[in-house]
């Protein structure tokens, strides 16, 4: 309520110069939860601990199949560029997991 009062006052003040063209109201949104459903596999715990703070499992699992070297490069980029607090010892486990889940077809054949 207080914000609404302040807003209407601001509008009436600006109206001295020129008519207000738009009235801005407060906005809020409740976003859906992100279910942490990762299939089992070697290194899953390392992924849950180190990756899911920023990445939806859905996004990880939607990536095209790429090489182990590419996953190593991607995890490296997360550490060096995006400053993800990923323990160096966890990196091979994360890479193992990504290579593993990509080796298992998750979609019905079409």
């Amino acid at each position: 309520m207080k914000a609404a009062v302040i807003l209407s006052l601001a509008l009436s003040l600006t109206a001295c110069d020129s008519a207000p063209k738009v009235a801005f109201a407060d906005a809020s949104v409740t976003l859906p939860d992100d279910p942490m459903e990762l299939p089992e596999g070697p290194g899953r715990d390392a992924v849950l601990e180190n990756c899911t703070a920023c990445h939806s499992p859905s996004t990880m699992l939607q990536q095209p199949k790429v090489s182990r070297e590419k996953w190593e490069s991607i995890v490296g980029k997360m550490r060096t560029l995006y400053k993800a607090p990923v323990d160096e010892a966890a990196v091979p486990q994360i890479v193992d997991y990504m290579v593993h889940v990509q080796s298992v077809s998750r979609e019905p054949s079409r």
Partner: protein
Amino acid sequence: MTDSRLTRRALIAGAGGAALAAPVLAQKLVDLGLPGGPSLRAMDPAFPGKGEMIVQRIRPPLLETPMEVFREGIITPNDRHFVRWNWDLPTAVKAADHRVAVGGAVSQAVSLTLDDVASAGEVVEVVAVNQCAGNGRGLSDPRVTGTQWGNGAMSCAKWTGVRLKDVLAKAGVSDAAKRVRFAGLDVPLTDGAPQFIKSIPMDIAMRDDVLVAWGMNDEPLSLLHGFPLRIVVPGWFSTYWVKMLATIEVLTGEDDSYYVADSYRLPARPITPEDKDFPTIPIAAMPPRAFITSHADGAAVARGKPLTLEGIAMGGDAALGRVDLVGAGFELPCTLGHDEGPYAFRRWTVTIPQVTGNIEQIGVRAANINGLVQPETLTWNPSGYARNVIERITLVAQ
């Protein structure tokens, strides 16, 4: 970790996969036709203010517009407009508390209220396509990593706001100004990670149709679309259309920030997937694109009858010039529909006099008035940016 534990885990993995399959199959899924997969995407969970969308990522949200939405008209309804956030967005913004700081190479740095911004100049409306630089990335062949969009990371809206140049005038731009950089309220989750900030050259910033916008199809921007203000750069990819605008910074030199200097860049000349260490340029203006919306790949059509195809096209950073239906050994010019301005989608229609058999690998090819034409083959790049190869489908005569 012991071998026996690994084995047990492998067994659990098998069971887990089966258990997961049941709820996944119960969901409504869409097949984006991504070569080699994974290609199926869920149409849920629902997001507030949004209709049915392809959920590419839940947090931060990446929501793709289903292609059938583009059958409906030029304007994408707000509840079906695609959503893309690089970092988490605040879930509440108080209008009275919001400020836009205008600083850098200016006469007098200012902190503007929303009403200051709204009264900075004449109110301008522009209909413009908002398209992610990575739209269609998932269709790249060979595939590349990143958000695996189909072709629905694009939408078209009527944007309402004031000119960026009028907002800049509140602070007085230095004669030495080279670029204008924008930052929003979205910030990285990790300390030291690059903030999503983007800049445009001064000549673009001073254009009469580059806006600080608050309106989207005559409604206030929702938070998911950048409430309270977003930059609109008609004809340029939406990476520059910074949402939840909080800072405008005038630069006197090049922008060395990550998302301009190191990311969102294209090879300066065509490359192959084997090439490394090539020069790059920032992705900027959009090229022309066209899509068939009346028929999906594999759709049945009536043998012996005329066939009318419809769709949408865009000219990119210049008005659409023409659209042609192209197939094996034939081309047919399409009739263009209502013109909502150079940066909007435009509908097209074309009639094939008689269907004599399957129509293999047909597509529509857009050209803009500057003579830029959609290519026959994909101009591959390692980030999957700026896809505009002719999109082809096959229709089955019955």
